[in-house]
């Protein structure tokens, strides 16, 4: 058994993310969103929010930082050039709004090897400053062998 397959599930330090209005706008533009809720404070307030709303997939930003840090864990020894994202699941709770403070915990859930490729699964859980669930993520990556 390669050493990587013997890793036991474990957690990484929690990561705090301060949600900024301009970051939401930058993200929303980058993925082609047009809903005024993501851009205009007035539209968001008219819909009952305190500030602009983050698109659901903004989870990639506030919890992605935790995922990136976990993948750089020296013990995992991941060759990032050979890394492919193979699957992703998000489950959302409360909407994320500019001004929110999101805390994400991420844990290594599974490591397995198949046909020379290493599959790694992380699970993340993100809450806002009121402790409300905003997103749970399951991140699956595959590390291809270098030829």
């Amino acid at each position, binding site marked *: 058994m390669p050493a990587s397959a013997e890793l036991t599930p474990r957690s990484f330090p929690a990561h705090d993310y301060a949600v900024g209005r301009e970051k939401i706008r930058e*993200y929303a533009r980058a993925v082609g969103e047009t809903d005024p809720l993501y851009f205009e404070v007035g539209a968001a307030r008219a819909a009952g929010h305190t500030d602009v709303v983050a698109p*659901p997939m903004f989870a990639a930003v506030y919890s992605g930082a935790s995922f990136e840090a976990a993948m750089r864990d020296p013990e995992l020894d991941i060759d990032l*050039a050979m890394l492919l994202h193979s*699957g992703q699941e998000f489950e959302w709770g409360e909407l994320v709004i500019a001004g929110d403070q999101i805390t994400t915990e991420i844990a290594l859930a599974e490591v397995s090897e198949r046909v020379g490729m290493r599959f790694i699964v992380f699970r993340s859980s993100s809450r806002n400053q009121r402790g409300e669930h905003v997103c749970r993520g399951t991140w699956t990556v595959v590390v291809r062998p270098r030829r």
Partner: protein
Amino acid sequence: MSALAAGSELPALTVTPDRYATVRYAGASGDFNPIHIDEEFAQSAGLPGRILHGLYTMALVARAQTEAAGDPGKLKRLAVQFRGPAVPEAEITITSTVKERRDDRTIVAVTATQDGKAVIRGAVAEIEL
């Protein structure tokens, strides 16, 4: 939307990410893996060239759902498998078919295709409708 029955289609979404889409997404997301922004590096890693971030393509899948629902808060769950690298400067089509209604959720099967190949297949979205 409340009349959505199993088998009905949500509006398709077609997007052609421009040449610099991966650069903008890298900046917006913080994922600067060079396979997404450096042509030579991507080829040296055995890829056809710079590939789109999987989470960018997933964001298109999510947008198709939230635009159909008319409210970002209605998308409660999305699970995808990335089936092949998607690339900039070629059209991506997101197709969404209602599979079933379950309590207050509409379960939608979603596929993203580019150049006739699925880049995301078997995706499942749950919309509160």
